[in-house]
């Protein structure tokens, strides 16, 4: 670890995945007690693959990804577990080492590109800065590189727009510029925190396409954080559903979307509007509110909002936190639920509601 600048190349690929997060906990110590924003998160991701993390606001999605970026350093957050990126535990490296990795090995793009860019500096200045901090280049070279990246992400007349300020860009263009900024150092992991939430629908599709294109070119691993299952269906290879700081269902994207076995995932699917449904059909929201992370329910965190508690019987849901166990469909699909025959319940009760045409087949 003497020559920090060479670590990404010199670190040999170890056994295991490119990114492997093991039992990650991010707790915040507050005057009211400990807030367990992320409580034991485990997932893996290979280069060139995309993981979608889904969940409501406050479910710990962004907190977990900030932990991978090392953005909790210097705050009151208490982190434990392991974040192995290319064989290096990011929770163990020094602050300075983490700073050097930020933006170079791991980059992040944010939800609202207007507030995520400094209003007083030109787009070019901010992109160049990201390049110059990790590469010993002249201003001119950095500028050329910034223009190159802006062109790559589809900004017209990049040599002129490079001198524009963020407010002179449209929302979609700002997000493109953010992506250019994120990818300028060719990071091996890109975390996109709700990258399309603040954009209008037509632009959303363009940005998602762009991300997929770039992923192919750069062979980066992408974590896409969203609450939009449409985005997940479009982008993700794997899906991790989070609730109250924990994974409640995790597996290949297709499995999760077609054979979900956790009532919370069912609720998410039921909340998605269906374009082809009749206007009479009602959306079924998940009742209640997300639990307090300060005093989470003792058993399953979703129990107070779950319509299927009766299927388990007894006090099990209320008293015992279910483990993340293999789902019926097998493979790598796991779920955190006490219901024994979750696959049957889904087929019989949920599917007819959300996709009646599929049931008739």
């Amino acid at each position, binding site marked *: 670890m003497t020559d920090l600048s060479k670590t990404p190349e010199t670190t040999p690929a170890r056994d295991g995945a490119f990114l492997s997060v093991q039992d990650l906990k991010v707790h915040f110590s507050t005057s009211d007690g400990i807030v367990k924003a992320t409580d034991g998160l485990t997932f893996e991701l290979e280069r060139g693959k995309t993981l979608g993390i889904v969940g409501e606001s406050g479910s710990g999605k962004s907190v977990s990804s900030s932990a991978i970026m090392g953005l909790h350093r210097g705050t009151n957050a208490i982190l434990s577990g392991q974040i192995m990126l290319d064989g290096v535990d990011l929770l163990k490296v020094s602050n300075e080492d983490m700073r050097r*990795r930020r933006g170079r090995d791991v980059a992040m793009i944010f939800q609202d590109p207007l507030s995520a*860019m*400094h209003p*007083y500096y030109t787009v070019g200045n901010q992109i160049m800065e990201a390049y110059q901090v990790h590469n010993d280049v002249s201003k001119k070279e950095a500028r050329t590189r910034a223009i190159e990246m802006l062109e790559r992400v589809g900004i017209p007349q990049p040599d002129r727009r490079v001198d524009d300020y963020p*407010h*002179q860009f449209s929302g979609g263009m700002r997000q493109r510029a953010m992506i250019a900024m994120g990818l300028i150092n060719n990071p091996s992991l890109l975390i996109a925190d709700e990258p399309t939430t603040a954009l209008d629908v037509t632009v959303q599709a363009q940005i998602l396409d762009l991300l997929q294109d770039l992923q192919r070119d750069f062979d980066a691993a992408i974590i896409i954080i969203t609450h939009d299952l449409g985005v997940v269906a479009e982008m993700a290879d794997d899906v991790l559903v989070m609730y109250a700081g924990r994974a409640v269902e995790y597996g290949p994207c297709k499995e999760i979307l077609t054979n979900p076995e956790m009532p919370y995932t069912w609720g998410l699917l039921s909340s998605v509007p269906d374009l082809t449904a009749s206007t009479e059909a009602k959306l079924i929201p998940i009742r209640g509110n997300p639990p307090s992370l300060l005093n989470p329910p003792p058993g399953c965190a979703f129990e107070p909002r779950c319509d299927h508690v009766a299927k388990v019987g007894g006090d099990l849901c209320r008293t015992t936190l279910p483990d993340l166990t293999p789902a019926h469909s097998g493979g790598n699909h796991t779920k955190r639920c006490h219901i024994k025959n979750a696959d049957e319940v889904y087929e019989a009760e949920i599917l007819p509601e959300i996709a009646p045409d599929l049931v008739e087949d």
Partner: protein
Amino acid sequence: MVAYIIRRVIVGLLMLVAMSFIVFALFMKNPVDPAQFSCGKNCPPERIEETRQALGYDQPLLVQWGNFAKGVVVGREYPADEAMREANPELVTECAAPCLGYSQQLQMTVNEEIAEAAPISISIALVAVTIWVVFGVLFGVIAAVFKGSLVDRGVVGATLSLYAFPTFFVGALLINFVAIKWGIFPAPGYVPIAEGGVGEWLLQLMLPGFTLAAVYMAGYVRMTRAFVLESMSEDYIRTAKSKGLKGGKVLFKHALRAALTPLVTMFGLDVAAVLGGAIITEDVFNYYGLGKLAVTANETYDLPTIVGLVLLLGALVIIANIIVDVLYAFIDPRVRVA
């Protein structure tokens, strides 16, 4: 931008015109007779009448104000009454444009009064502003960076106590201990640069400068701390961090730059206010600056001096506002276009 500045200057001038009229009107509708005050306590009635004519108080309000406005533009002569000027040509005082009036009490034009007092106020203000901006912003940033730590609490606590001390108390304390008992600084008395050089001038200004700066400095520490903390929690700071920028660059290039905007607003108005005279500080240290001049003029019902000072201070505030607005455009590119 140029058109904008011109527009602002015109509006500013109109505001000054309105201000002068309001001061005039308030003064004249007052039950106290200004001629009586100008003449003195044991003034015989005919002398009062004479004074009234000499100062033009016998004229209707609008005429008086018209004469004043004319004086500002082209200059005028005193006594205001033409017949009196012709009768005693040796008593006539020339007051060149922009003539702000003539003070019977001080026997000189307001312009001369201001020319005498302004350098003192400007000197104190210069020293005070430098002290409070440098240390205010410095300690504010330090407190923000070490938020919640002992350093932060120390800085905040110290500024709070400083804030709580009235200016006259701080001034008296400094004179008593620092100047008289310990003899670190000379007992204050204003020395112009022309007489004692920059060193002597500055030395004499340290105590009044610090006294005036103390309260402002406390305010700037608190404000800077709050503004920096606020901008440190912005999304673009998270972006800057996630680029891998060093802590110093995140703080100075990204956070402080954003915190500068509200600070510049405060700064512009505060500077204008202290340039117009620091009343208490000048009084405690017995410096005959604009503040002390204003107090004396108020006590003696010296209308011309009061009007002149009000207009000067008003002009300073208006100019400071225009400068702040122009500075905004340099700081914040979003303002530039609009």
